[in-house]
C-alpha cells in the first residue's frame, strides 16, 4: 500500500512558510533560533487568540495552510509529535505557582500546558472527530506520529494530518545552559557542521504534513519507510536491519540518491552520524538541515519538509550539500536522525 505526502508546510527560523522551495539565503543567528512568524491576524480573530500562545498559533497556522494546500474532502485523523508541548504556558503556570506559593493561579495556562492542546485545537477548528494522538517522546516524537499515520492509513483512513511542533523559550534556553546543552554564545548556525565543539544550537518549528492514501496533483512524495531503533546495537546490526527494511520497501542502499543527516553541531553526538555516514553510506550524496532550523525535539519534521522540496524541485541547494558529491536526479531521499546514539530514526521519501 502506497502512502503519500499531499501537503507540507513549515514555520521555522527561516523563510520557509508557504514557500515552494528551500530558501537559498539563510538567516544567521548567533543565539537561539526562533520562528519567522506570519501575520497571525490573517488566521485568527482576537477572541480566538486569547488562549493561543506563540506555539499554538504557529501550530494552527501551519496546520491550516497544510490542510488548505492538500485540498482534501475530509480530514480523518490528527497525529502531532511534540517533545515538550506548550512550554511557555507550562512555564507561566509553574512560575506563578512558585511565586504565589500556590496562591493566585488561573486555569487557562494550566489547560494550555497539556501536550495535546495543539492536536486538540485543530480537531475543534476542523470538527475532526476521528483519532487524535499526541506523541511526546523526545527526538522521535514526530516520527512516532508519522508511524501512527501509516497505521491509520493501513486501517482504512484516507487523510491524516501529521505535525512536528516544539518551541524554544528564553527561560528554557537559559535553563539548559546549566547542563551545557548549547554551544557557547555567540555561535553561528551556519557553522553547525564544522564547529568541532560540544553543545548544539537551539531551534524550533511547526511543520505539518498531509499523509494520504491517494496520489493527487499536489503529491510531494511517497513515504517508503519509517523505521525506529531505540538502540542501534552497533553499525553492522544497524546496516543489516536497514538493508532488510529497504528491501521490504523494494529498495536497496544503491537506490538512495541523497542521505539527509540530522547533524546538530554537537561534536559528541555528531560522531554517531559520522559512523553511519562513513560505514553505511560512504559512496552516497550527503546533506544536512539543522543549520536552517536549529536543534529541537521534532527537528526531524523540518528535515522531512526539506526533503519534500528537494524531491519536488529535483534540486539540492548548495548549502544543504555536505561534501562535494552531487547527483542529477533525486528519486529517493533517506533521512537519519538520532540523539546521542539513542532513538535512531530512518525515513525514506521517494519521488512519484
Amino acid at each position, binding site marked *: 500500500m502506497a502512502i503519500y505526502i499531499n501537503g507540507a508546510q513549515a514555520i521555522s527560523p527561516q523563510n520557509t512558510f508557504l514557500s515552494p522551495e528551500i530558501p537559498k539565503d539563510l538567516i544567521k543567528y548567533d543565539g537561539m533560533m526562533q520562528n519567522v512568524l506570519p501575520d497571525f*491576524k490573517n488566521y485568527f480573530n*482576537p*477572541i480566538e*487568540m*486569547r*488562549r493561543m500562545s506563540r506555539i499554538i498559533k504557529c501550530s494552527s497556522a501551519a496546520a491550516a495552510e497544510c490542510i488548505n494546500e492538500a485540498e482534501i474532502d475530509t480530514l480523518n485523523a490528527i497525529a502531532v509529535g511534540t517533545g515538550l508541548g506548550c512550554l511557555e504556558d507550562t512555564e507561566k503556570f509553574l512560575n506563578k505557582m512558585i511565586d504565589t506559593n500556590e496562591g*493566585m493561579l*488561573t*486555569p*487557562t495556562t494550566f*489547560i494550555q500546558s497539556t501536550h495535546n492542546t495543539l492536536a486538540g485545537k485543530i480537531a475543534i477548528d476542523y470538527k475532526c472527530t476521528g483519532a487524535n494522538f499526541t506523541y511526546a517522546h523526545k527526538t522521535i516524537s514526530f516520527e512516532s506520529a508519522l508511524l501512527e499515520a501509516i497505521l491509520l492509513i493501513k486501517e482504512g483512513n484516507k487523510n491524516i494530518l501529521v505535525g512536528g511542533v516544539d518551541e524554544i523559550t528564553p527561560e528554557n534556553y537559559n535553563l539548559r545552559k546549566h547542563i551545557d546543552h548549547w554551544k557557547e554564545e555567540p555561535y553561528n548556525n551556519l557553522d553547525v557542521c564544522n564547529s568541532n565543539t560540544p553543545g548544539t544550537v537551539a531551534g524550533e518549528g511547526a511543520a505539518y504534513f498531509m499523509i494520504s492514501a491517494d496520489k493527487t496533483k499536489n503529491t510531494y512524495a511517497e513515504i517508503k519507510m519509517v523505521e525506529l531503533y531505540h538502540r542501534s546495537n552497533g553499525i553492522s546490526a544497524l546496516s543489516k536491519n536497514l538493508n532488510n527494511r529497504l528491501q521490504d520497501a523494494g529498495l536497496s542502499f544503491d537506490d538512495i540518491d541523497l542521505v539527509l543527516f540530522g547533524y546538530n553541531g554537537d561534536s559528541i553526538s555528531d560522531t554517531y552520524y559520522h559512523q553511519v555516514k562513513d560505514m553505511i553510506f560512504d559512496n552516497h550524496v550527503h546533506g544536512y538541515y539543522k543549520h536552517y532550523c536549529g536543534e529541537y525535539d521534532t527537528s526531524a519534521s523540518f528535515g522531512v519538509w526539506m526533503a519534500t522540496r528537494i524531491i519536488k524541485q529535483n534540486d539540492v541547494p548548495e548549502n544543504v550539500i555536505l561534501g562535494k558529491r552531487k547527483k542529477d536526479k533525486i528519486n529517493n531521499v533517506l533521512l537519519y536522525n538520532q540523539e546521542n546514539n539513542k532513538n535512531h530514526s530512518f525515513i525514506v521519501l521517494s519521488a512519484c
Partner: protein
Amino acid sequence: MDSLIRQLKEQIIDHLNLEGLSPDDINEKEPLFGEGLGLDSIDALELTLLLERGYGIKLENPQEGKKIFQSVETMAEYIQHNKK
C-alpha cells in the same frame, strides 16, 4: 457605575488576554457568552477569579456565575451590591 463598567471592561480584556480589543469594542449590555463576545466555561472560571481577587467576592458555587456573568452590566450590578 459608568466608571466601574469601564474598569471591568479593561480588567476583562486583561484577564482573558483579549489582545487587540479595546473597552469600546465591548457593549456592556451584550451577552458575554455564546452569541455576544463568545466566551466559554473556562472564561467563566477566569471571571470568577477576577471577582474574588479584584473585588473580594467569593462565589462558593461556580454555577452562580451563570447569572452574574450575563453581561458586563450584570457583573457591575452584582459587584456594586456585594463588594466588601
